């Protein structure tokens, strides 16, 4: 009798293990939506994935309304509308974004990320269908309005202000990054251990793949219209954020190509000898802000990442060299099907 029980237990164990392996390799939920002015894809492994994905869409819509300058009642617009008129009550999330932006701006004294670049973004028509080259005089007039230190944050009164009239914040350089951190927190709160979100190219991972291996996040070839990659990074629990000259650009009447990232020092679209910068660090907000290292060029960009401390980077220069920071050794995998790039592992 004992023998039969023994055989039965072995049988159950074998069947159970065969079944559980199948569960682990189950396909993830992949959900697409258009939020924050871009395409967003969630990839979720685990139970109740659809419910989690729906919660995330709700939250992203809320953040969009709060942080985009295109939403009339949002915090970003209130802040801009009352520039120079004292403190304006702000939501918790907006204060978090403003504070993070200030922290990252201070690392470069506002030469890379500066959210007060709003008046110039508007003058150039960035993000609209009618981008244009403003007059040199207009740019000269607007430049004094750009100063990240003029964003005053009052935590006690849950409010903030722009100290000069005419100033405008544009949170486009950091809001998507912040949203990524919020989403990863939602995944954690639901007990997930393996998921990622791609918010218009900002990839934020939670944990590792279900099999324990790191995620492979591709880095786009900046000159490929068909979305080919030049390689990928292996990451666990990290954000991977790229800023490049190719995402949104326009040609002026004289044929000059301009990118969408405004250099807060010159008032013109950045031209730094880089085609893209990819930053890898745990905080998605910081990765987004730090990716404006693009404006500083290779040397200045590396210096910015060093001053932050825990970030790694992949810099692609206009002469098609890919510089990879020392901490990524072994985690960057060069796979350039175009054979146009040279890979340089630093340190």
């Amino acid at each position: 009798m004992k023998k039969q029980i023994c055989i039965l237990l072995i049988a159950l164990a074998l069947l159970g293990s065969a079944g559980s392996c199948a569960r682990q390799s189950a396909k993830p939920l992949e959900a697409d939506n258009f939020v924050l002015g871009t395409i967003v894809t969630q990839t979720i492994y685990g139970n109740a994935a659809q419910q989690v994905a729906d919660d995330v869409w709700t939250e992203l819509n809320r953040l969009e309304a709060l942080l985009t300058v295109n939403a009339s009642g949002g915090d970003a617009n209130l802040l801009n509308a009352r520039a120079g008129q004292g403190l304006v009550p702000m939501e918790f999330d907006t204060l978090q974004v403003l504070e993070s932006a200030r922290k990252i701006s201070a690392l470069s004294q506002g030469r890379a990320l500066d959210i007060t670049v709003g008046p110039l973004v508007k003058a150039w028509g960035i993000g609209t269908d009618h981008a244009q080259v403003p007059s040199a005089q207009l740019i000269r007039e607007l430049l004094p309005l750009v100063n990240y230190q003029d964003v005053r944050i009052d935590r006690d009164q849950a409010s903030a202000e722009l100290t000069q009239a005419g100033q405008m914040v544009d949170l486009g350089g950091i809001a998507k990054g912040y949203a990524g951190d919020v989403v990863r927190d939602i995944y954690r709160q639901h007990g997930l251990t393996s998921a990622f979100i791609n918010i218009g190219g900002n990839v934020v991972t939670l944990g590792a793949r279900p099999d324990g291996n790191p995620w492979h996040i591709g880095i786009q070839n900046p000159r490929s219209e068909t979305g080919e990659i030049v390689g990928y990074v292996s990451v666990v629990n990290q954000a991977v954020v790229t800023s490049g000259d190719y995402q949104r650009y326009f040609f002026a009447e004289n044929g000059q190509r301009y990118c969408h990232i405004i250099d807060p020092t010159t008032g013109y679209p950045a031209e730094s000898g880089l085609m893209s910068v990819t930053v890898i660090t745990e905080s998605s907000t910081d990765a987004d802000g730090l990716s404006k290292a693009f404006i500083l060029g290779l040397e200045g960009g590396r210096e910015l990442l060093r001053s932050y401390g825990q970030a790694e980077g992949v810099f692609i220069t206009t002469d098609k060299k890919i510089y990879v920071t020392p901490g990524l050794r072994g985690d960057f995998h060069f796979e350039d099907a175009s054979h146009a790039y040279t890979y340089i592992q630093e340190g």
Partner: protein
Amino acid sequence: MRIRTFKKGDFILILVIAIGAALLFVWNHYPASGQHQVFAVITQDGQVVREVSLEQLGELEDMELQSNGVDLTIRLERGRIRFSASTCPDQICVHSGWLSQAGDRAVCLPAKVVVKVLGQSNGAPDSVAY
């Protein structure tokens, strides 16, 4: 002294169960042959409007789609799919070209339409930063 705890019949039973477990494992791990195919999925505002097996397509087909004020033409033929025309301003969707490998995707942001290819991917990254 030999103590026989297992009889021949027991070994056969164990063997049968082990083979059963192995078959179940293989059944769960390796998808049925149909799932080796690549599928194209077209979504509009996040909702699936069409799902098609690219291998089973016959004649070339142009699918017209109106979405968020943009007129789109999506071309399908055996093994591949693409945005072939769009009235959107930037034409990024059209420039994305043909999609044929699992993991390939093209997006028309103004129209809020995504075309993606699903199936067994061969070493493609999990996602792409851009």
